[in-house]
């Protein structure tokens, strides 16, 4: 079983990546600050108070013990106590994840069909003005920081036209449509970043497939154009696009920090930002590791999906 072996190999590699990630996050959160108590209490605090706090937080124990304690609890779902709130971290992470998922889902549901359609359309009209527009605008939108596009979008749609609410937080007990209405403006900066990437992949893949021998054969044997497009061109061209879409999940989360801060939204990005400002290391580590896990799982899923959809992998032609 070629596919089975690939799945096992990818799974193991992902586990190694996750382990390395946990070491990096641990190093960032617990090694680099040196004296955690001093970092929290500030340079003017009494030395006894600092030692006391360090003992309370358990950061005066050997590093390996600390790492094992942290990671074994984390795997069991216990993300230790927040320094700021003096209560368990996990419920905060869970609630924030739900909010971020809503925002991410709105952005994704908007961007995936639009950008794939845009990319394929551009590929079918290579060199025309609209193709150039989609390519150049998509590329420019992708490289702009989310807070820059966000600010301009807020000014245009939130203030001047007054079409959309500028706060992502909906009133208590609002229905799904009100929630989506409030998430439209925040999802737009994410839309702009993703549009360029996905459209470019869809365009490049379609151009390649249009140029391939199998497409020429299909046309020459007299198949109707829509059948060629669906069965021959798009089936092949959208394969790499799927992978790109899944890997963009990670970038989406990176963008969430900025977008959630800009729109005052209580998601995982906003949570990480608040934790970072308040030097709440357990919250920060848990948030960052959660994001890393989501990204790694998304990448793995993309890899496996690609392998499952690509007949060449089945027959062992590529690995």
């Amino acid at each position, binding site marked *: 079983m070629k596919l089975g072996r690939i799945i096992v190999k990818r799974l193991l590699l992902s586990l190694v990546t996750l382990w390395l*990630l946990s070491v990096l996050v641990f190093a960032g959160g617990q090694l680099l600050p040196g004296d955690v108590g001093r970092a929290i209490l500030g340079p003017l605090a009494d030395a006894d108070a600092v030692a006391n706090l360090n003992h309370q937080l358990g950061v005066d124990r050997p590093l390996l013990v600390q790492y094992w304690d942290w990671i074994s609890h984390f795997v069991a779902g216990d993300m230790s106590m927040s320094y700021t709130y003096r209560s368990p971290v996990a419920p905060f992470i869970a609630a924030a994840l739900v909010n971020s998922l809503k925002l991410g889902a709105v952005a994704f549901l908007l961007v995936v069909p639009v950008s794939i359609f845009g990319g394929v359309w551009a590929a079918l009209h290579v060199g025309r003005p609209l193709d150039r527009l989609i390519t150049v605008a998509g590329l420019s939108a992708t490289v702009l920081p989310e807070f820059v596009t966000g600010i301009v979008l807020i000014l245009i749609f939130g203030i001047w036209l007054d079409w959309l609410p500028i706060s992502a937080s909906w009133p208590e007990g609002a229905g799904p449509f009100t929630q989506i209405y409030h998430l439209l403006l925040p999802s737009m900066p994410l839309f702009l970043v993703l549009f360029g990437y996905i459209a470019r992949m869809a365009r490049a893949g379609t151009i390649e497939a249009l140029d391939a021998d199998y497409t020429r054969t299909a046309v020459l044997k007299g198949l109707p154009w829509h059948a060629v497009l669906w069965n021959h061109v798009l089936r092949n061209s959208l394969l790499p696009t799927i992978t790109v879409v899944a890997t963009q999940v990670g970038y989406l989360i990176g963008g969430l920090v900025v977008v959630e801060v800009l729109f005052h939204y209580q998601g995982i990005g906003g949570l990480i930002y608040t934790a970072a400002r308040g030097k709440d290391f357990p919250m920060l580590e848990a948030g960052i590791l959660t994001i890393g896990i989501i990204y790694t799982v998304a990448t793995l899923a993309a890899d496996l999906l690609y392998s499952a959809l690509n007949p060449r992998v089945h027959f062992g032609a590529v690995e």
Partner: protein
Amino acid sequence: MSITSSDAAGALDAASPASARSERLRLLLRSPTFLAGIFILLFWIACALFGTRLVPVDPYADDLLSALTGPSAEHWFGTDALGRDVFSRVIVGARDILTMAPLATILGIVLGTAIGLVTGYFRGLIDDIVSRLVEAILALPLVIVALLALVALGSSKVTVVVVIGMVFSPIIARTVRSAVLLERELDYVSAARLRGENAFYIMFVEILPNVMPPILVEATVRLGYAIFTVATLSFLGFGIQPPSPDWGLAISESYGLINGGYWWTVLFDALAIASLVVAVNLVADAIHGVFET
């Protein structure tokens, strides 16, 4: 290097590396996207270097009596919450970001090139370790890695530069490594090895000049990301601190005011960042295109 004389030389000997260089330069200078990008970039570099001497009003001088006035003949871009002149601040605001982003890029390129040369030349265990490390780092968005490191190490401009450079280095190393893998199989490397040159000489004197094109492309692409990241971090309140007229910082200070209709306090800074980022990416794209062909 003068363009005309090397052009003539290129006509005589098309195979020489110098003529390939001048040919690339000629292609670049004919590319409208490159020219547009380099023009905007030079404008902002000039602002960063001479801005304080060019602006009509001291960008740091506050004047609370004329706070938050709209654009006028006196204040072209209006004034911010402290009554400071937004136009002067936008011009001088190029300075911090155009110092930090290139420094971070240079650090990443130097480290990454060294790592890439060593891993590509020796392969084996170091190679595997670096590849895993790259994947672990890439599993986190750059802004989040930077947040973690800045909180842990303390927020300062130097930390921002070092963190971005460090995160870039394995990514650049991967590009350099794949270029080195191709080069090391070529005859000139075997020849150098047979001559008895040591590994250090072969890597840095023989191979390095031949892998410069991908490094140059990578450098321009990374510069775009560095500007993106520095701006985003200063918007989040890390790195550049008040009273710097930095654009990201200005937006973070003023975006609470846009509800009241004070759009000029953020719009011009946003447009400045947008123009700089797009300009660098236009240049990067053009350079990439020239070296691809």
